[in-house]
């Protein structure tokens, strides 16, 4: 008995939605097996990473604040990837967004007023857009691969933080620590549920996802992204300029990454520290794919990935699982998802031996 792939007449919508769930479940099963094999408590690891954050109500607020930046960045990436614009440098745009927001916070240090925070947010969005504009410019003008440029700029952005907090923005009262001073009250993101750490960024993330979903599914902008990604030549025939689309995709994804950056620096961090680049920008790539490049899916996927982050920390303290295990689980999810993609356009058929010889 052998298997053979057979093209479906129509792509299967069922598989589009089923495979991400299958990928998560498979990751839990295979992950438990692998971690058991290499000498860890595999079942315990899966339980702590995937279930504890859900069953333990105390962890929900952690989930919210971890999911928010993943969703915001992931939504932006899902729009860009739809258009086949491979912005891999969301981490860099997130960093620059945070840096720009910090700049405003430090300039307005000690001032009060409702306008400080919105100004920071605008600065953060513009920062992210500006940083994404570099690969967009190079791609549209010179056809330089955006994957490589956006990624290289990410590495450079991290050095920019190190430079800023070591020299010009260093906290004068910081006892030599490389970090900025703590933002003043007006520059901090308010919490929305008293007594928790859940900040304004959480509802913003959900709102971003919903608005993006509406735009992507109903508007000509969304249509433009989809058609340029699916068939660039047809897009040109339909009157959509490819360069303009690249610019839009890059700027939107950069803006959202920048937004996530400024919300993060004004929320959980409240100052710029060397640990600010938290790899949300890279994890959001997984979020975008797991969410099937659909903003609503991205919201769910963002929560799933947040679960693994929170759960990873739990597993670290309870069963001594190294921090890096989280990354492996996340990568496995993406692997299984990509492997499952083939089921959208193909079905697996069992074939007898005779026919197999024919199919060879």
């Amino acid at each position, binding site marked *: 008995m052998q298997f053979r792939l057979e093209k479906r007449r129509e792509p299967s919508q069922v598989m589009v939605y089923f495979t991400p769930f299958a990928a998560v479940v498979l990751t839990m099963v295979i992950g438990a097996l692998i971690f058991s094999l290499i000498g860890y408590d595999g079942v315990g690891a899966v339980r702590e990473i995937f279930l504890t954050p859900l069953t333990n109500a105390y962890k929900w607020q952690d989930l919210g604040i971890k999911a928010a930046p993943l969703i915001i960045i992931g939504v932006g990436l899902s729009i860009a990837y739809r258009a086949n614009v*491979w912005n*891999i440098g969301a981490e860099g745009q997130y960093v620059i967004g945070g840096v720009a927001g910090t700049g405003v916070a430090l300039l307005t240090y000690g001032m009060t007023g409702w306008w400080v925070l919105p100004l920071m947010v605008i600065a953060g969005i513009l920062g992210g857009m500006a940083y994404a504009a*570099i690969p967009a410019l*190079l791609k549209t003008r*010179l*056809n*330089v*691969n955006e*994957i*490589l*440029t956006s*990624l*290289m*700029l990410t*590495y*450079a952005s991290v*050095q*920019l933080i*190190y*430079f800023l907090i*070591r*020299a010009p923005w260093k906290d004068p009262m910081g006892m030599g620590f490389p970090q900025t001073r703590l933002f003043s009250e007006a520059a901090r993101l308010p919490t929305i549920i008293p007594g928790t750490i859940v900040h304004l960024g959480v509802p913003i993330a959900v709102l971003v996802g919903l608005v993006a979903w509406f735009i992507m599914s109903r508007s000509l902008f969304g249509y433009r992204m989809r058609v340029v990604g699916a068939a660039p030549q047809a897009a040109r025939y339909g009157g959509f300029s490819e360069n303009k689309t690249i610019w839009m995709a890059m700027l939107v994804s950069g803006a959202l990454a920048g937004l996530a950056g400024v919300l993060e620096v004004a929320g959980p961090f409240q100052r710029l520290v060397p640990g600010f680049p938290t790899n949300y920008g*890279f994890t959001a*790539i*997984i979020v975008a*794919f797991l969410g099937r490049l659909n903003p609503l899916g991205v919201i769910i996927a963002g929560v799933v990935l947040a679960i693994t982050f929170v759960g990873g920390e739990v597993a670290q303290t309870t069963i001594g699982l*190294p*921090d*890096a*295990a*989280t*990354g*492996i689980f*996340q*990568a*496995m999810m*993406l*692997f299984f998802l*990509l*492997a499952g*993609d*083939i089921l959208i356009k193909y079905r697996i058929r069992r074939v007898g031996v005779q026919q197999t010889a024919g199919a060879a």
Partner: protein
Amino acid sequence: MDLTLAILVTVVGASTPILIAALGELVVERSGVLNLGVEGMMLIGAIAGFVVQFHTGNPYLALLCGALAGTASSLIFGFLTLSLSANQTATGLALTIFGTGFSALAGSSYSARPVTLMPPLFPAEMASHPLAKVVFGYSFPIYFSFIMVVAIWYFLHRTRAGLILRAVGENDQSAHSIGYSVIGVRYLAVMFGGAMAGIAGACFPLLLTPQWAERMTAGRGWIAVALVVFASWKPFRLLAGAYLFGLVMTMELYAKAGGGPLSVIPSELWAALPYLATVAVLVLISLRRDASTNAPACLGKPFLPAN
């Protein structure tokens, strides 16, 4: 003289892993596959090489195991993109994320435990004179990288197997209709690329910093991918590109060490320089008239037989 020599040795050390990884990726891309997982495969090679060196002290065995680990990880990529025709860009990224996590997990119990660096290939007497040292003073991977530049050029342009590999990268459907196994050729290329990335990764603990550090390849895998574009998919240009980067990274090291005219510029800028230089180099190459005409026509496109 001594300083020049020391700089030269540093440049060679910094260039070699990039060159080896880029050579592997060049062959992969010539077969029409874009594997963006070089960074991840390098990290897996690095931890494998480190662990073997730590336990056996045999650097050649360490390199071999680095190559095997790199190959094994490339098979994940190969299975997904070739057998299941998954998106190559996304799968490559997934491989890098996986390699980062896997190496960090495997290396978590080895932090701050030193290994010995790989000794030079030739006996010390042969390299006693400073000038002789320039020729005979390096360890095996350096000579290996040079040999591979020539060997890959010869393979691609003078052998039938190389012709087939190029044909598969140029027009997979035609190669298939003539009767070549597109998927088979690409599997071999991807595995070769994995082995080279693994060796390149193993060079980090064996040649550069004799210990394990998370993400110790620091984006060098991505620079290798960029260099392949820069080199227009030609092995000898890759050699030039890799040494250019080796030079930039060496300047960073000297700037950080302090003193001299280099330290006027903040060390963070030096650290960012290889990445900014990569962007600059990509811009420069794109200004050339024939920039993308050398790119294999099927690069990055999944292959499914038309019938």
